[in-house]
């Protein structure tokens, strides 16, 4: 297993990157303060791991992303379904969504701080914004592209309006929505780091900002690496979610 191409090649790439990194450290002449090497970063990694800082900051970031992301999905998916199904709602709501969507969540920082003060809430609000719009749009598109035959089948068998949603719409959009969630959690993870550079005293974003102020570039790099690893894990989780049997079954038919 472990010696298959699928595993060996990615490992090889990372080894090459670390080697290049070490070469730059050895021959560039930059000081350890400006450009710490792999060994220094690894030592700092264990230092932050052992004193619990890494764990606490990661949990703080994940907590915010999880809450904000769930809120975004909780409100975004139903709104997307309504927009996709009801023409009037689409005409009323869609332009507003399309107008708000291109505004970076980071542009909301001043207002978020003013409205929610200091702490988790403004950060969660920003994550919510960054997940909500993509989820609404992806859901609405998924609903609008459901094969009309399925609605004809439903009306032929006298399904109620509620059954139409639970038995046709929701299962039909699952593959697209899972893909959208996978892309969205990546965005949310990007935004949380930026959000944590303001307004909070914890999280991986805060760790980066705090380490910069202390001129500890090794800590900055540790935080960056951990952000990358957690992002990778989140993506793998969402990918696995998309491979569950009923989801795959409905994808194969489309």
């Amino acid at each position, binding site marked *: 297993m472990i010696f298959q191409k699928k595993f060996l090649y990615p490992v090889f790439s990372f080894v090459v990157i670390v080697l290049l990194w070490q070469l730059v450290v050895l021959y560039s002449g930059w000081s350890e303060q400006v450009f710490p090497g792999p060994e220094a970063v690894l030592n700092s990694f264990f230092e932050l791991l052992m004193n619990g800082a890494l764990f606490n900051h990661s949990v703080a970031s994940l907590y915010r992303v999880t809450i904000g992301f769930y809120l975004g999905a909780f409100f975004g998916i139903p709104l997307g379904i309504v927009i996709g199904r009801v023409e009037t709602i689409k005409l009323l709501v869609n332009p507003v969504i399309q107008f708000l969507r291109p505004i970076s969540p980071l542009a909301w920082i001043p207002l978020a701080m003013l409205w929610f003060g200091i702490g988790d809430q403004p950060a969660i609000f920003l994550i919510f914004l960054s997940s909500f719009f993509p989820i609404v749009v992806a859901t609405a598109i998924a609903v609008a592209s459901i*094969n009309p*035959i*399925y609605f*004809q*089948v439903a*009306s*032929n*068998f*006298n*399904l109620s309006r509620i*059954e139409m949603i639970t*038995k*046709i719409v929701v*299962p*039909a959009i*699952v593959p697209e929505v899972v893909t959208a969630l996978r892309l969205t959690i990546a965005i949310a993870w990007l935004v949380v780091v930026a959000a944590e550079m303001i307004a909070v005293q914890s999280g991986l974003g805060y760790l980066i900002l705090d380490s910069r102020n202390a001129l500890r570039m090794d800590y900055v790099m540790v935080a960056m690496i951990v952000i990358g690893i957690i992002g990778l894990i989140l993506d793998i989780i969402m990918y696995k979610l998309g491979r569950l*049997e*009923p989801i795959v*079954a*409905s994808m*194969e*038919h*489309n």
Partner: protein
Amino acid sequence: MGRIKIEGLSKSYVNKRSKRRDPHDPEKKGAVIKVFDDINLEFDDGEMVCILGPSGCGKSTLLRIMAGFDQASSGRILIDGEETVKTSPDHVFVFQQNGLLPWMTVWQNVELGLGHIDDEAEKTETIQEYIDMVELDGFEHHYPSQLSGGMQRRAELGRALAVNPDVLYMDEPFTGLDYLTHLKIREEVINMHSFIGKTMVMVTHFIDDALIMADRIIVMNERPAKIMMQRKLDFSRPRNIEKEPGLRELRDEVFMMLGVSYVA
């Protein structure tokens, strides 16, 4: 019961895309396209009716209007004397392809139309009965994508029959099947029809299918479509076109009518 009467049925629509270009349309209302005009037909209860015609002649539109998916411009359709205007489990449509809900197993698909049965034991029994009837026992918990094309078609037939409709509409039900599966499913539909005796209306462009299956064939021509031929077929079953001179003659006649003058 399923006596069908079609009275003066017409369907036309406005082609809005033709608006700007058409010099014969000074008011820019768009060209009116007549799909078919003043169709009058009558089918007996329990008949197997096959509607033949070139592609684009509106035979599928006719079937969709009968099922209630589409509205006629004028005229009406009566089943047992009652006008039908919308979809109903009393007359079920079997789709060309992919009518099964892919996220539901065979069991769940058959269950779809049985929401009105409150008694769980009765419901389970009904579902199993129809799954057995279409010979899919053992595949109850398979998803459609795990079934062959022929099995998917049988599952959809089972689902349609499970609601005990008066009429079954089938739109090119053998499309996408390989030749042998086509013949097998055709035979199964014939057997099922003689067993349950429901009115079935099938649209097809396979003339042989119509001749082998139908109690009555209808031939439509190109737009605006009219009924060119309507004939009751009372040849004995099972039918074999090669061995039945009457069927061979009829086939030549239909081919001629559809513009194919010589068939080997």
